[in-house]
């Protein structure tokens, strides 16, 4: 599996706190039995409301691979369709002040690192991308730093997720299944399994 240590690319600033997964992908697009095509629907209602002024519609951010957000991004519904839509649009990593728990876990499971930084650093990166959309952003999971043009700052990620990316074990399924004997042993100790 792919190790993910560093992500480099241009970025797309999306300001605002508490952006929920209903906004990232409205529920009507969840009527599907595959994740195909979700990339085009990302932020559908927010984009329609802003009539081309949403960062995801602005030409200067086309091709960006790093999404830069603020506080509690991805709150609400557990729908993996949200990170899937973001990933299928072309995003490879997200930098923000904080992330909702389930959204973060879903991103780990599909290989999209979500890194946090202080409000100050996030604000600087967003400002840099606003001023110059060609600014190259690098997120380094090993050194836990972000560089953007001439700027730099500290980033972090919960250690379990970070190690999973560095070791290339973020898709946990194979590892989990391989421990079948230990799983059965644990199940055998739980009284309710026998009821």
């Amino acid at each position: 599996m792919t190790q993910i240590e560093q992500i480099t690319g241009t970025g797309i600033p999306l300001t605002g706190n508490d952006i929920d997964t209903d906004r990232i992908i409205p529920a009507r697009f969840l009527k599907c039995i595959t994740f195909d095509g979700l990339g085009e629907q990302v932020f559908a209602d927010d984009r329609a409301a802003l009539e081309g002024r949403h960062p995801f519609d602005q030409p200067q951010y086309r091709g960006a691979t790093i999404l830069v957000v603020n506080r509690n991004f991805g709150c609400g519904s557990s729908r993996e369709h949200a990170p899937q839509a973001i990933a299928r649009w072309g995003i490879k990593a997200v930098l923000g002040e904080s992330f909702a728990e389930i959204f973060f876990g879903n991103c780990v499971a599909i290989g999209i690192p979500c890194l946090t930084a202080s409000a100050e650093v996030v604000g600087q990166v967003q400002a840099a991308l606003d001023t110059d959309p060609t600014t190259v952003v690098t997120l380094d999971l090993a050194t836990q730093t972000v560089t953007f043009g001439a700027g730099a700052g500290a980033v972090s990620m919960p250690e379990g997720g970070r190690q999973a990316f560095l070791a290339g074990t973020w898709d946990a399924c194979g590892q989990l299944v391989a421990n079948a004997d230990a799983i059965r042993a644990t199940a055998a100790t739980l009284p309710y399994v026998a009821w």
Partner: protein
Amino acid sequence: MSKGTLFDKVWDLHTVGTLPSGQTQLFIGLHLVHEVTSPQAFAMVRERQLTVMYPQRTVATVDHIVPTESQARPFADPLAEAMMQALDQNCQDHGIRFYNIGSGSQGIVHVIAPEQGLTQPGMTIACGDSHTSTHGAFGAIAFGIGTSQVRDVLASQTLALGKLKVRRVEVNGDLLPGVYAKDVVLHIIRKLGVKGGVGYAYEFAGSAIEAMSMEERMTLCNMAIEGGARCGYVNPDQITYDYLNGRDFAPKGEAWDEAVSWWNTLRSDANAEYDDVAVFDAADIAPTVTWGITPGQGIAINETLPWPDSLPDEEQVLAQDAFAYMDFTPGQSLKGTAIDVCFIGSCTNGRISDLREAAKVVQGRTVAEGIKAFVVPGSERVKQQAEAEGLDQVFTAAGFEWREAGCSMCLAMNPDKLQGRQISASSSNRNFKGRQGSASGRTLLMSPAMVAAAALAGQVTDVRDYLPTH
């Protein structure tokens, strides 16, 4: 780090091992599956040539997409029909118990598992739905997961997770008349914030919580996630055991006694250590209504809307956004706000006690002209029980529509949707922009009794004016 809490004990008992990343491999005692977040997971299991490891610990139903008017198959919506067929086929292929429409036991996944006794203290429970936190009401550790994690649970009955911290959220004293579990949780979220619980499990405790029925505790734990806490729970007690005893999947006979003894050992120790404690006084809680675009933007019914510059800096931009979207003005009261649609139902407030409380308000009265008001029972069993008690008659006589079980307008993945700028009084759990099916639709969250009162008045009102005085 927490120590001696129910969360710690259940976590340790379900730990299979530590993964190289440092994450815990956690056994999942009950996996609940529904039609929206599972088809891709089953596809991944097939692609990887895996099997479902514990089909007997997996239970499925349909709730999100089902129409609540006509449930005749095939559904009018071909995409919804395709999802129904996919789940039916996946359950057949893997030997998974499936409560389909008409089985008598279908309903919202977080309503049917408790009512059948599938949800039990001390279990770990996962489901591809954020409101899985509901099941914590029984002293289970229950949380929502995404589709790739649904795949992991199907294939291994385990998840790779980091351990949460534990915050004890105490509510002490007696709730005032007209104040319900919904008001308690809206109040807590308002005070602790929608991200206040990120990284935490919430242990709800204190005399006001201990006095709550199981269904009230479910309402409370259901919305832990709206406060950012991936799971919320209440320590199991006699109220829990009385609710469970005799239900379909509850242990019977000797196993029941053994179960109660085991469950009692799981309660948080008297000297348990918490990462944080928050304390509330029940007497401070009034009927609460949200006015904005997150569940944390709420006020007591007698308060007026905040001035953005009176809020903490980090909340001001969101408040401005909310005022613009909702078309409200700082300083105004919500009382008297005209309503278009009244929705009673959802995994938060679609249980029999919710319908009983709403019916008490509605009894002998009439829905205001021009209001669309409808009641959606949380499950086929809730519907049947309500009809046996004549509640459907109370609602329909007043002008409410009486529907079939499903998620309905909570998330509007079915024909129940707001239109345009309509504003709803809703007993559901999310007031996000566009949540109820219209990109410009507006949602006011409140208790089912408050929704009922709003339907009668045609506007937001104080339910206490509609309750019998003693």
